[in-house]
């Protein structure tokens, strides 16, 4: 019980720390997440993004800036909180708690970079092919696209973790039943 409470406290601290870091950071301080995202966007779109100190990653050809608000930190916090909650039932010891925290942090960072790459790539495509929907402005389309990609990313990440978690549980049950059968054979 104490371990689980400590896990919740540490998870809240990590989420709060990320949010504070994001609030106070300059774009250059977020290169740990903006850099990989910009490189992946470059790889998917073929556009070169160059780091502009104090601004972010800029594509001169497309006049497109990957700035601080594109970092995906809020997505990373949401994914991290969701994963800690989803894997909470696995925590029996301190080692389990550290594993859950580490795995959630790593998975949320990876997911944030990947999902953000998709979001920015789609946003670049949409800006190059503006839709003629009279009731939606370009900002509305960008917002709806962001919500769609982020929410779909969260759902996909959750499904993936649930499947991996169920697979691990099934393997553990198989190993336990195999060990039980072997010990029964030895006793007989």
């Amino acid at each position, binding site marked *: 019980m104490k371990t689980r409470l400590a896990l919740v406290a540490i998870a809240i601290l990590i989420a709060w720390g990320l949010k504070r870091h994001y609030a106070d950071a300059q774009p250059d301080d977020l290169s740990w997440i903006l850099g990989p995202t910009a490189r992946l966007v470059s790889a998917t779109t073929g556009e070169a993004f160059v780091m502009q100190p104090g601004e972010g990653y800029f594509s001169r050809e497309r006049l497109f800036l990957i700035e601080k608000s594109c970092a995906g930190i809020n997505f990373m916090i949401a994914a991290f909180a969701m994963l800690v909650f989803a894997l909470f039932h696995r925590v029996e010891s301190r080692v389990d708690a550290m594993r859950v925290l580490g795995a959630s942090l790593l998975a949320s960072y990876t997911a944030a970079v990947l999902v953000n790459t998709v979001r920015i790539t789609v946003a670049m495509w949409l800006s190059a092919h503006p839709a003629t929907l009279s009731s939606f402005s370009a900002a509305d389309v960008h917002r709806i696209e962001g919500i769609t990609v982020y929410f779909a990313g*969260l759902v996909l990440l959750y499904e993936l973790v649930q499947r991996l978690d169920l697979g691990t549980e099934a393997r553990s049950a198989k190993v336990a039943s195999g060990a039980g059968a072997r010990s029964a054979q030895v006793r007989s």
Partner: protein
Amino acid sequence: MKRAFWTNLAHAFRRTALPLAAYYAVTLALPLANGAAASGAAFVRHALVVLAVPPILIVVACGLCAAANSGWSHIQRPPQQSSS
């Protein structure tokens, strides 16, 4: 058919409850806690879009799944020939 759709929709909402809660917490609860409501109409507009889009996506996804399933079962089941 309709009943199956509603059952699937309820199942989809249960299944996506945690991602939905995490998304709403970060996009609505945290900004509200930080005083974003003071920005007035702009935040209300943003909040309405954030609140509406994910459930719409779930309904659309369920509708597409139902349509795909019904189409698939229609293809799999050949039309019955009359015995006369």
